[in-house]
Each structure stands twice: as structure tokens, then as C-alpha cells.
């Protein structure tokens, strides 16, 4: 009995010793403020924000999913560093490593998911991934030192010089492509990203995207309504399924080249682009749209009016020059 009692006492002592020992250990040398792990992104870039706690660290390397390495040399002037990292479709693992004098001191990994609404494979994020918003009051506090976190947009006025916008510095990568949407290029973000309906973030995406679109593109609404047959995305009102509201390398800001865009959903069941006896030449990039109107039509299968006379080879409809 006595032995056991002594054993128990020793055990308790040992635990306290452990506690003390753990307390003495040093803290993390860097802290990753953003992004949180397992977040879903709907754009092809993400910004990694790193805060340096240990002053001995002189280099940070970030390894993106596709193998590119981003290096940051640390100076004593500031303690937080933002790096723009490009993403691949689907799951991405990004490594953040901190070095001091050539030695690796710390490593951490960020997992994220690039959700792309066009491809079936990447349309839905898998379990465990969440939508995390950046523009929360907690996050903005950390950024306030270097960035102006308030929108300086005058309601109803576009900037004379787009670089004046407070949004420009961080979000300019949204507009690197050739064809850009006018409100995005002029940085009047509030036309779509209004503050009202969400408590999670300051600048949410509108709940009903089609309403934001129709606010300017009223003509389309009228023309679509009068038509007999409508494309499903048009009926539901998810314009952003095919169009990128910021910028795109393709005309009309469509997310992929016309044929790829169509076949991303309409694959299989003989809906290939090559079909003998028709003038749907796969070589021409806009071949689907030559005969089908992507929005609405009075004819079944969204045929363009005047489709029947085969003699004319000229493209028809709104969507072509």
C-alpha cells in the first residue's frame, strides 16, 4: 500500500515537472495570419500574410502547388509580409518555410481549394473546406498599419485615376487580363459588392447575381424575357457561371474559350464539336455559338434565327462580329 502511495505521489510530481518543462519551450517564430487552412477560393490567386515574431528570421519561402517558389527577404522595418500565390484548380497545398542564417526554423502548410464554376470536377468543394471571408473587423485591424482598409469610393462616381482606389493595391491581379468589365476596371466595386446583406464580411458578393447584372444590362433582360426557350443558367440567373465579372482573356469576359465553355457542361451523349455534315468546324473557336444562341432563342435548341438557309456562311447573332 505504502509503495503505491509513494508511486502516485511521484507520478503527480512528474506531471508538474513536465508542465514546467513545456512552459520553458520557445514559441513559434512566425505566424500565418491569412489564409486559414481549408478555405475555398473562387479566384486563381491567394495572398499569404505572414507575421514575423522571432527577429532572427531573415528569409521566408513559399512553395505553391505548381512548384513556383516565392521568396521574401525580411528587413527590420516591418513585421508583416504579403505574397501573392497562384493557385491550381482544385486542392492546393502551400508550404511556408521560415529560415534564419540558412537554417530551416519553421514549416507550415496551408490547404486551400480553388473552386471553378465551369468545370464539373471543380464546381463543388469537398468536405472540410469552408468559405472564409477576409474583410472581417478582426483581420482588418492587422492590415491597418500598411493598408487603407476603408473604401474611398464616392457613390456614383468613378475614379479619374483608378490607382487612387484603396482596393487597387491588393486586388489588381483580378484585372490582369485583356478584356475587363467596366465597373471593375474603374474600381467602382460597390456597384456589385454592397455592404448591406451579409454580416460575415464587409464586401460580399451579391446574393442574386443576375439582379446586379441587370442593373446596367437592362436590354438583355427584356430580350431574354420575350424569347420562348431559355438556357438554364439564364433562367436561374447565374450569369457568373460563364462570365467572369472582373476580367478574362476571352471576349465578353467568358471564363473559357467558347467551345470549351460549352462542352464543359454539354459533354458526352454525342454533343461533340465534330459532326460530319454540319459546318460546326472544331477548328473555328466560336463554332457552337455560330448556330446556337447561348442565352435564349425562339427556336428549339437555341438555334439562331435564319439558321435554316445553309448558303450563307456568315456568322449571325449578337455574339459575333
Amino acid at each position, binding site marked *: *500500500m505504502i509503495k503505491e502511495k509513494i508511486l502516485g505521489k511521484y*507520478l503527480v510530481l512528474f506531471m508538474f515537472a513536465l508542465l514546467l518543462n513545456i512552459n520553458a519551450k520557445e514559441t*513559434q517564430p512566425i505566424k500565418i495570419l491569412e489564409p486559414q487552412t481549408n478555405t475555398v477560393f473562387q479566384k486563381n490567386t491567394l495572398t499569404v500574410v505572414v507575421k514575423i515574431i522571432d527577429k532572427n528570421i531573415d528569409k521566408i519561402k513559399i512553395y505553391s502547388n505548381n512548384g513556383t517558389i516565392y521568396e521574401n527577404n525580411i528587413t527590420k522595418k516591418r513585421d508583416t509580409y504579403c505574397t501573392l500565390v497562384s493557385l491550381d484548380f482544385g486542392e492546393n497545398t502551400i508550404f511556408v518555410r521560415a529560415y534564419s542564417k540558412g537554417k530551416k526554423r519553421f514549416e507550415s502548410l496551408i490547404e486551400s481549394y480553388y473552386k471553378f464554376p465551369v468545370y464539373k470536377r471543380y464546381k463543388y468543394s469537398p468536405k472540410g473546406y469552408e468559405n472564409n471571408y477576409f474583410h472581417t473587423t478582426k483581420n482588418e485591424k492587422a492590415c491597418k498599419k500598411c493598408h487603407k482598409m476603408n473604401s474611398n469610393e464616392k457613390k456614383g*462616381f468613378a475614379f479619374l485615376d483608378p490607382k487612387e482606389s484603396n482596393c487597387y493595391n491588393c486586388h489588381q491581379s483580378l484585372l490582369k487580363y485583356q478584356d475587363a468589365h467596366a*465597373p471593375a476596371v474603374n474600381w467602382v466595386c460597390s456597384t456589385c459588392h454592397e455592404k448591406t446583406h451579409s454580416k460575415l464580411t464587409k464586401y460580399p458578393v451579391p446574393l442574386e447575381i443576375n439582379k446586379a447584372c441587370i442593373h*446596367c444590362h437592362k436590354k438583355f433582360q427584356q430580350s431574354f424575357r420575350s424569347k420562348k426557350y*431559355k438556357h438554364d443558367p439564364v433562367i436561374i440567373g447565374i450569369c457568373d457561371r460563364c462570365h467572369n465579372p472582373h476580367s478574362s482573356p476571352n471576349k465578353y469576359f467568358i471564363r473559357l474559350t467558347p467551345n470549351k465553355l460549352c462542352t464543359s457542361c454539354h459533354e458526352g451523349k454525342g454533343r461533340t464539336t465534330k459532326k460530319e455534315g454540319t459546318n460546326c468546324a472544331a477548328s473555328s473557336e466560336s463554332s457552337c455559338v455560330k448556330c446556337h444562341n447561348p442565352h435564349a432563342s425562339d427556336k428549339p435548341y437555341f438555334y439562331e434565327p435564319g439558321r435554316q438557309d445553309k448558303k450563307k456562311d456568315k456568322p449571325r447573332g449578337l455574339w459575333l462580329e
Partner: protein
Amino acid sequence: MAKNIKLIILTLIIVFSVIFFIKYDVGTKFGKFVVIMGNIMTNLQKDPHSYYTEGIDLDVSEEELRDINITKIAEDFKTGQREKIEGLLEKVKELEIKLASKNKLDSELAKLQEEQEVIAMQEHATEEKMLHHSKIDAKVTELVKLEDLPQKFKPLKKYLHEPFKKGACLICHDGNSAEPGKLVTKKNIVALCYKCHPRKDKQQYKHKPVEDGKCFKCHDPHQSNTKVLLKGKSVNNLCLKCHDKNKSVKDMKKTINLNKKYIHKPVEKNCLECHEHHNSKYKKLLKSKDGNLGLCMKCHNKRKMDKKWINYKNVKYQHGAIVGKGKKCLECHDPHASNHKNILKKDQVKTCLECHNKSLKSDEDGQMMMNMAEHLKTHKNWHKPISDVEKEGGCAGCHNPHGSNHFSILKESYTKKFYGDFSKKGFICFKCHKIDKIKKEFTTKSTKFRDGKVNLHFLHINDRKGRTCRACHDEHASKHPKLIRDYTVFGGVKFPLRYIETKNGGSCQPACHKKFSYDRVNPIGIKR
């Protein structure tokens, strides 16, 4: 022993939980370890993309699609809204009917008032003619023959006073008195006149001589060469004896200056076309109520007046200056004479800016109009009609200040839209500007807005999605050359055009496209 083991386990749990709470690092590490292990376990069991496999068919077959009638669902949704709209429309209709009936009553009232005025004027005229000369015959027995009149009355003039003509001098003069020409009454002369003539001072507003009882200021009691025994050569001659500004009459404030370029015709012809001579119900001895509009429209509502015919009633859009509460016509015009065209009080543009120096509410659509005076002040490049008032007519070059069937009381049709069609006839801009500017695809003369030979106006204004003039140009004034706007409104947002002029061309970076530049001499190569 058993008790001790329990104690040990409890302490262990407490210690570990304390560690977890205090040392976040260890907690995360431990948690991470658990998560990673868990992931490894689950990954070993599951295929990572099992939800994409063919187990679940996400594709809907055509048969199923046929069953789902989406258009019907959409229509059902619509009809719910339609009923609401129809209900609202009915209400609007009812209100419109009520409004129409009210307008009718108003117009009838106005007509009745006018008729009353006419009748009153006629009565007034007849009253004057009804002079009872029989009174004279009854009273006076001694008549003086015309030959016996004193020398100063000879030769006799064209119009003679009735008693004077008959030689009944004793009606007015005292025959028994030694003093020649002494009047019968010791009181005012007026009392003598009003013995026969009806009173002229019944109405509220009186001519000063009438009020003072000085009939002889205008009338000669014996004879005259003008009608109604006036002292002047004509009515206007008589009036101007006192009311001319250049002839200084003491304490006379109500004068007019006729040494001016433009004179209102009735002023030259007859003052009595507008004014009453003795007394009147209305201010300034005017002939009709609300002096300016009703009176002016007695002449100016006739189509015969051609250019000076003013149609303010039967137009779609009326000018607030005429219809509203104010001086109406006299807000802008001088009723007598002026040095400015159309007898305006001031320079054409300045008269408009009298009121439009603040943002006013438009009667057309209830929106606020711009503060034009400030706009012209801050934007120095003016449209030619505004800068060259004498030639082009100022604001009235494009607007009809009396009312028009086109919006913004414009003289010809115009558009409010960003996109528009130019096939319509009578577009106001092309009254002065040549349409070649737009219609010619290649040109070297018609316009300066071209890249080499390529007409960039034509590019912007093609048939399908043509932009209107006002998309890029300000109609009134601008800070930039060629009246290029600072901002163009699209979708409720004002986008700057960012126009920069260079020696042989320029560049532009609006919301519509990226920065494009053009050059007339060394073309950059813009294509359609």
C-alpha cells in the same frame, strides 16, 4: 489503492487539460497529429474523389427534362407579379380619369371668367355713349350762336363738345358774373363734368388726374382735332407728354424710355390696347386680369402673328416661367421697349440664368435640373449658341422658352439615352452640324475625329448599338475641348472619359474601352 488510481487519473486529466489550455502550441501540435492520423486512416479507407464517381448520376436524361417544365414554373412565378402590376395600373387609371375631369372644370372656369370680362367691357363702352343731351335742352334757354363766340375759339376744330356746339355756354359758365369764363360751380371741376358724364373713378385703381379730378389735363372742354376732345395729337402723344422718361416731369415715376432698339408695337400704335385710361379693376390700369398672360395672349395667340405666335397651352412640355406663379411674360420681356432682341429685359442667356442659377425641380419628370449658371462658370468651353448670342440666339437657339412638344422644351427632337438611333428626321444637332460627320465611313474633311481616314464618329455611331451625341459631348459647356464631357453616366455611375488632346489627335479612356488614341496624320490603325 483503487482510490489512489482514481486520484492519479483525475490529476492526469486535469493536468493535461491545463496544459492544453495554457500551451496552445502543444495543443495544436497534438491536434494536428490526431487530424493527420485520422486523415491517413480515412484516406486508406476511401477514394478521395468518391463523390465524382459514377455511383451518382448527376446528368439528367432528356425524358426527365421533358417532365420538368421550367418555362411553366417561370410563368407561374411571373403571373403572381403580373396580378399585382395590373392592380396598380387600374388605380393609376382611376386617378388619371379624376385628374382629367378636374382639368376640364378648371378650363371651364377660366372660360367663364373671360366671358365675364368681355361683357363687363362692353357694358362700360355702352355707358359712355349714353349721354343724355336732353338734359341740356331742358335747362338752357339762352343759346349763343357760333358766330358770336370769342375770337380765341376760331377757327373751329374737328371735334366739338356737345354743349359748346349748341352754344349752351351757361351750363358750365356763370352768365351773371363780371369775370369772364367763371364757372358755375365753386367746387371741383369734376362735379361739373359728372353732372352729365358717368363717374370715372368707380374702380379700385385710378389714373392720377382722374383721382385728383383734373379732367382738363387730358381733355379740352371746348374743342379738339382729336377724338374725345383730347389735348394731344393722338392718344400716345398725350400719354407720352407725362410718361416719357426723356421729358422730365416732376415726381413722375411711371415712365417709359422709347429711345431703344426694339419697341413693342402697341407702344408705338396705341397705349390703350393694354391700358385703361380712367380707372381699372387691375393694377397699373391694365385691361385684363393677371396683367401679363391673359392680356398678352389677346394678340399673341393668333397664328397670323407668325413668328410671334406663342403657343404655350397646347404643348406637351410647358415652361415654368409662363405657367408657374410669377410675373409670367414679364419675367423675361419688357412690355414697352428694350435694347435686346424680342424686347427681352436682358441679354438672352442672362435672362435664362436669372432663374437657372440654382438647381430647379423639373415639371417634366420631377428630377432636379442642373445649376446652369454654375456649370457655365466652371466650364469655360461653351457651345457656340451660348458664346455667340447675337448670331445663334443663345439658349433660344435650341430651346423654345414658350413651350414645346419635345422634352426639355427643345425646338427639335433629341434623346436622353446613351444608345440611340440616328435614322430619325429632325434631330436637333443636325440643324447646324453636318450629318456627313457621322455617315461617311472614310473621310479627310468632314470631321477631325478620325484615325488617318477612318471616321471614328462612324465607328461609335453604327446602326446596331449607336451611341448618341450626349454619350460623349456635353450640350452646354465643358472643361475639355470639343465639348467632351467630364463624366458619362452609365448604369447610374459617372465614369470619367479621360480625354487628352494632342496636336494631331488625342486619346480617350472611358468605361467603354481601354485607352485608345488616334492620330490624323500618322494613323495608329484603328479598324472597325
